[in-house]
């Protein structure tokens, strides 16, 4: 198990090294940086769309929501319209709860077995780690908009302002960075420390986390240690956005390591488990209303099957049915024959 983690780390370090090497190739760094960035973005956008379209092209033959609360039945019983939605609106709200607040994960409990007893304890650690990581990542991505949009939107500036509220250090330490680091360390740490997690983790589970860790580490080093010429970075990213790439000469190896790690990560997303970010929206146990008895769910391929029809059955058991006095469907066939 350990070697999966180590191997994933080695693989994750490759883009960082490649980036550092690239920064030392004066004539190639612009064309290569631009090509890699465009390719990664194209991979990311097209890949996600293709995978979603592929999922979307597969039918949902049955209405199979996992119900986590009281159904809507008798008027005097209060239905749980969020965890057991009976309408599309309810299902949308449930989906909102899943994607924004990870409600299902919030339910998490830990069960231990001791002396033939199962002991349940509330276990919100995974939820906390996950929600911290994901929200922090979102804030960080949004903060990066300042590098991609000219006339930085006021909302992005405000976000940065709030994020550096504590005004520690110059430039200020972002709360989101700390939260992301804590979340990532937790998510990675539990894969090492928890024997169950260690047992179920695959190479790709470590790879995704290492890549994210690499992106975060290089980003933080650029901000707080080696310091990058932010205006230069912005020139580069605006160059990408306007399809006229430029590369100020003073962007160093750390910037290229960061750039290539980000490229590797976003290019990796469509072919990896990170597609959960799109897939969760399509999950039929969560996005359907539990109204299959009230509204017929149609299965486009509802295939015909061979059944044992009533007529066949009655033919087989006619005597016994007659003997038992159970009403028959057909008039007495034997009597007809004998006439």
């Amino acid at each position, binding site marked *: 198990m350990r070697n999966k983690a180590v191997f994933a780390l080695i693989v994750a370090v490759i883009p960082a090294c490649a980036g550092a090497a690239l920064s030392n190739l004066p004539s190639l760094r612009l064309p290569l940086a631009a090509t890699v960035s465009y390719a990664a973005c194209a991979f990311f956008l097209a890949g996600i769309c293709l995978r979603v379209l592929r999922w979307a092209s597969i039918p949902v033959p049955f209405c199979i929501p996992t119900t986590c609360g009281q159904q809507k039945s008798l008027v005097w019983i209060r239905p749980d319209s969020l965890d057991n939605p009976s309408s599309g609106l309810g299902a949308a709200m449930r989906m909102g709860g899943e994607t924004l607040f990870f409600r299902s994960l919030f339910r998490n409990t830990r069960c231990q077995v001791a002396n033939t007893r199962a002991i349940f304890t509330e276990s919100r650690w995974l939820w906390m780690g996950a929600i911290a990581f994901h929200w922090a990542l979102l804030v960080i991505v949004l903060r990066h908009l300042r590098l991609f*949009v000219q006339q930085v939107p006021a909302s992005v*500036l405000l976000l940065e302002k709030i994020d550096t509220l504590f005004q520690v250090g110059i430039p200020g330490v972002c709360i989101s960075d700390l939260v992301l680091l804590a979340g990532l360390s937790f998510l990675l740490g539990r894969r090492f420390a928890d024997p169950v997690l260690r047992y179920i983790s695959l190479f790709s589970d470590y790879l995704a986390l290492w890549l994210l860790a690499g992106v975060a580490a290089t980003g933080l080093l650029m901000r707080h240690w080696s*310091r990058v010429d932010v205006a230069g970075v912005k020139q580069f990213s605006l160059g990408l956005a306007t399809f006229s*790439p430029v590369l100020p000469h003073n962007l160093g190896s750390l910037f290229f390591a960061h750039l290539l790690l980000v490229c590797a990560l976003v290019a990796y997303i469509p072919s990896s488990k990170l597609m959960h970010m799109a897939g969760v929206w399509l999950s039929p146990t969560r996005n359907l209303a539990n109204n299959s008895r009230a509204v017929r769910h149609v299965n486009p391929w509802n295939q015909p099957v061979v059944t044992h029809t009533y007529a066949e059955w009655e033919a087989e058991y006619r005597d016994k049915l007659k003997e038992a006095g159970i009403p028959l469907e057909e008039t007495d066939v034997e009597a007809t024959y004998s006439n």
Partner: protein
Amino acid sequence: MRERVLIGTGLALFLALFTYPVWWAAASGTRAAAPQLQLPQHASACVAPASFMRASHMQLLSSWRNDAVRRGVHKFRSPDGRVYDVSLSGTCLGQCHSKAEFCDRCHAYSGVSTPSCWQCHNDPQLAARSIQ
């Protein structure tokens, strides 16, 4: 059918959000040009090399602040041996740069929040003098 519309809308939204920089740049006519800074006419060198200043001026100013306020050191010897007064208002803004035409341009361009320096060291008279 309804589901297809939903998925299609979702994907369109996803694409729109992630390509925001591209279509915004196209719509607003953004160019990938560096910010236009007004450079001092009578000084040829800064207190430290420009490449250092670009990335790390805030560190230098921070150490100046510490020197002047906490250690009582009011002189700064640059790497090339020249000596300057440790003063943002007097040296930087007073002798070379306009906040509006120099500092703010770059800060606004990169979306770097205005540091708290300006709460004190923003003397309109000095700024006016520097432009002369």
